[in-house]
């Protein structure tokens, strides 16, 4: 298991260093600094030297690093790093050098708690916050009963929830967020289109609420085993937060759970069938001789007129030897960014059905040893509210609690793309 946990900054300085085992000295950090931080070409998140393996995850300007001398479960180690990051985010708002330095004592407390001898332990944020705080706690003053409540929760079957949660107004917010991944060939055929869906929930519910969650009536989960109707929403796979009773889902396809207090990811799913592509991009890019490239790009919003795509950003690649780009756009703003070899075209809003066009000419310097331009794909980022590319809809969310209170539920849908909606040309 994990022998040591480190956080490094960009320069390779150690911000946090915790040895869980005696098989390493702190100086093992130097090895990581030399092998990874100072190495400009790191080609793996895992480096193994002799019997020692370093796992690292980068976040902002930091390296979160675990070191082991065993045949560790690599998925577990990375999940642990991710979990640390999300805990830190929840505690400090952001994870960067400043926030780590500002909270280093608290971080030491946290990593002592969430991993024992390198074995990850209870890492539920809600529970941790009930006993790991920055407030000065007089040790003798903590009532033993209060602590027993905490320990029972930390080790219990619903370790993610305190029993004594109270709200004046009982509310639950459900956010269905779908990320569309698209890869379209230069000929306009869809090479791959799929949806990564997340159902985020913010539950502000008193007591121990029993929730039942319902999706589309015609929902085919695990489409491999049944032949679904063509108009049904088909999910290839779904994964649930640990609060969801998997056995129940397996037998009756109902999603029932006692939610953690506050925000959590209830469900994650994947769909590859009938994916509606919100934006259609039609590029025409021609290399004119060796000195010019002409662009004509149309973007069409492929959804109802009541909806609109916002924060649309197209990143249109230009050859490496581009000297300047002359852009003409009717909507939004387009700007050539030489450092990244792209033209960034930002459109604040595109109404459903609307079409926007981009015309530009890039001037090139003549080079003697001209390599063929690799033509990286055009990348499109956008957000469309109240639309799901998969067609998934939340039908109901029922909350049962013994005090029988009334609860208000809100549902929101968002379809977006960031970094993986790509059109080749």
């Amino acid at each position: 298991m994990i022998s040591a946990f480190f956080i490094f900054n960009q320069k390779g300085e150690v911000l946090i260093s915790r040895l869980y085992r005696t098989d390493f000295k702190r100086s093992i950090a130097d090895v990581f600094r030399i092998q990874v931080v100072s190495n400009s070409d790191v080609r793996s998140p895992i480096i193994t030297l002799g019997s020692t393996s370093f796992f690292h995850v980068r976040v902002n300007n930091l390296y979160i690093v675990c070191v082991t001398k065993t045949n560790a479960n690599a998925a577990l180690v990375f999940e642990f790093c991710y979990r640390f990051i999300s805990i830190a985010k929840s505690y400090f708002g952001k994870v960067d050098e400043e926030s780590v330095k500002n909270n280093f004592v608290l971080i030491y407390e946290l990593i002592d708690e969430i991993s024992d001898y390198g074995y990850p332990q209870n890492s539920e944020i809600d529970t941790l916050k009930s006993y790991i705080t920055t407030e000065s706690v007089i040790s003798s003053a903590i009532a033993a009963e209060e602590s027993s409540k905490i320990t029972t929760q930390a080790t219990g079957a619903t370790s993610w929830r305190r029993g004594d949660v109270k709200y004046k107004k009982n509310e639950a917010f459900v956010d269905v967020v779908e990320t569309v991944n698209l890869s379209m060939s230069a000929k306009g055929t869809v090479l791959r289109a799929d949806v990564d869906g997340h159902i985020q929930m913010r539950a502000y519910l008193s007591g121990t609420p029993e929730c039942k969650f319902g999706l589309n009536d015609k929902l085919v989960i695990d489409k491999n085993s049944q032949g679904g109707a063509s108009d049904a929403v088909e999910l290839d796979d779904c994964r649930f937060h640990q609060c969801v009773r998997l056995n129940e889902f397996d037998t009756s396809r109902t999603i029932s759970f006692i939610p953690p207090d506050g925000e959590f990811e209830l469900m994650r799913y994947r769909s590859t069938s009938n994916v509606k592509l919100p934006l259609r991009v039609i590029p025409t890019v021609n290399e004119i001789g060796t000195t010019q490239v002409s662009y004509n790009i149309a973007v069409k919003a492929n959804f109802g007129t009541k909806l609109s795509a916002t924060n649309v950003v197209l990143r249109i690649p230009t050859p490496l030897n581009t000297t300047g780009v002359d852009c003409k756009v009717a909507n939004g703003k387009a700007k050539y960014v030489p450092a990244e070899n792209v033209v960034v075209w930002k459109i604040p809003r595109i109404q459903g059905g609307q079409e926007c066009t981009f015309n530009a000419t890039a001037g090139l310097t003549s080079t003697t040893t001209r390599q063929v331009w690799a033509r990286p794909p055009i990348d499109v980022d956008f957000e469309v509210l109240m639309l799901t590319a998969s067609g998934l809809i939340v039908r109901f969310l029922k909350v049962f609690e013994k005090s029988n209170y009334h609860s208000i539920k809100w549902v929101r849908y968002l379809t977006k793309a960031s970094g993986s909606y790509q059109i080749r040309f």
Partner: protein
Amino acid sequence: MSTQQGQDAKFFQRGKIEEFRAELQAAEAKDKKYQKRKTVLKKIVANITMGNDMSPLFHDVIQCIGTPLLEIKKMVYLFLVSYGRSKPDQIHLVIPSFLQDCSDRNPLIRALAIRTMSYIPIPVVTEALGDQLRHCLKDRDPYVRKTAAICVAKVYTADPRKAERKGFVELLRDMLIDENATVVANAVAALSEIGDRQDGVIFKLNLTIANKLLGALGESSEWGQIYILDSLLRYVPEQHADAEMMAERVIVQLQHANSAVVLTTIKALLYLMNYIGDRRLIDYICRKMGPPLVTLLSSGPEVQYVALRNILLIIQRRPTVLKNDVKAFFCKYNDPIYVKLAKLEIMYRLAREENAREVLAELEEYASEVDVDFVRKAVRSIGRLAIKVEPAADKCIESLLKLIETKVTYVVQEAVIVTKDIFRRYPGKYEGIIPKLCENLDALDEPEAKAAMVWILGQFADKIDNADELLDDLVYSFLDEPAEVQLALLTAVVKLFIYKSQSEVTKALVHKVLKWATEDIDNPDLRDRGFMYWRMLAMNPAVAAEIVLAEKPAITTDSDRMDRGALDQLLLHTGTLGSIYHKNPETFIRNAAGRALIDSPALNANSRAVLVTLARPQLPPTVISVSGPGPVEPTRPSQPGEAADNVPLPTIMESSRSDERDLLDIEGDDGAGGDSGEGYPDGDDDGPVTKAADPYASWVVRLVVT
């Protein structure tokens, strides 16, 4: 959720021991709400973090241990974890305080105390911990018990024999039926760690206990589920039905949000499938495994990488998994390079006639990307695709020719290398493209590409009009070429001579090269081959021709599939480092526990046929060096942390294994489960067996009493 913003960055400054000491002493006089001490201790912790040796402050810091502020206590404990081991003469000063905490009313304090004590593995502390730990293992609070369970693993690591004598292992074993799932999971983790030690007790599960653990699965935390699922590989099903029941119980965990739970579930399922008889169930499990594996690709890139390397193994063993999902493995332009390279291999594996066109289109796209290594592998994959999928070969060749036209040197070289294999796979079909290849002769500067081109020139010297000229040119630098190219040149020139023995140019050429190879070259392989050719040609040119130009066996893609027995063994490490490097852990990690399928009446005949038996653990005398794409040895002679690796190993196990054979085996049978399953005592283990009436049927704990 409120976020808490600390303001501690200002303490991140290097300080002097004397200053801190003075500040601590000043704080003793007047310290409202302990603010001063807190500040100094924060500075000290920051300095420990920065690598400043704060151990001289030991005596001063431990004065604060009695401060009733929890935050201060935790900082003092952190200090003790860092320096306690180096102060065996002073550590006794803090023990009374620890002991007091061990019996605190507050369970969090009790747990914190034993957790911290067990992090200081020196005899004084461990001795004092002993009784407390025994109590805590039976504490009424589950949090204390779960902490105590891990403490046993720590204490065992510090001194295995002593921990056994004190009966901690049995206490830990008793925790497997604890009412609290978190306690059970930690006990499993601790026992697994102990069981993986080469000098540790043997940890096996029988059906009853395995079922009990599965019962705890639903209530344990995600991490606990991983420990439990992992331990299922310590259970050897005796009947198909047992394995089938167990697989059905764990399969729902594939829907878990934590990727490590998913991969460990897959590991357990792959393992159990070896013992399942029902073909339909196996198909069902395979079908169920595919979607979650693809979903792992929407995790962070690091987890994607772990998943991809594992998928590569899984689809070799269970080809039905993911066979229709090749698209999921197409690279995104901004995937990290390690994800792209791993996807590329899977794409090749999943390529079939039905999807070859799509795969080829992707590979062509990748061949124009920026990363040289990725581009080369993409080009190579095009060639491999041609060899693997015959109907796609024409298109692949076309695409390779297009790539050669780009004149990008590394693309051309890679294309030439694969083309050579394509010629061998489809003799007489594509030789028409040879002139195209010859145009790029000058671009080849890498040995492998050059050797491939030379092979082509020699092999088809009869079809290439100016083969003699081209080879003559290449031979010009013969003496400076690497051995690989020299060997290729030697053979090519001999082939040329056999084809065109009448030509004077050819005669001179072959003579020149043979003379060089036998007289001027030190490489024995080359010299031997030179002599061999020379004699053959001298004795009987006709026979020589038959031998040299003999028909070559066709190239197949079979060889790149891993041997099934090896796969079965590697898959027992699914999700771990070994599965990423595709190497058994014992071959690259010192003291790592190897795994092998264990025979039982339920084991499938096919799995049995390729059963790999695990060699008796042998302690490698030095660090094993593993070459290839996997882990590499540190290049610097003295790595700070690696120093420990060179310390001679303790030899206790050898003596206790072979000589002192007074072993105490605890074996029991509850009868209730009705399973006749036996644990597997070691082959040469015929020590006294004590039958104890406890609920751990056939649970073998081997204690070495020294």
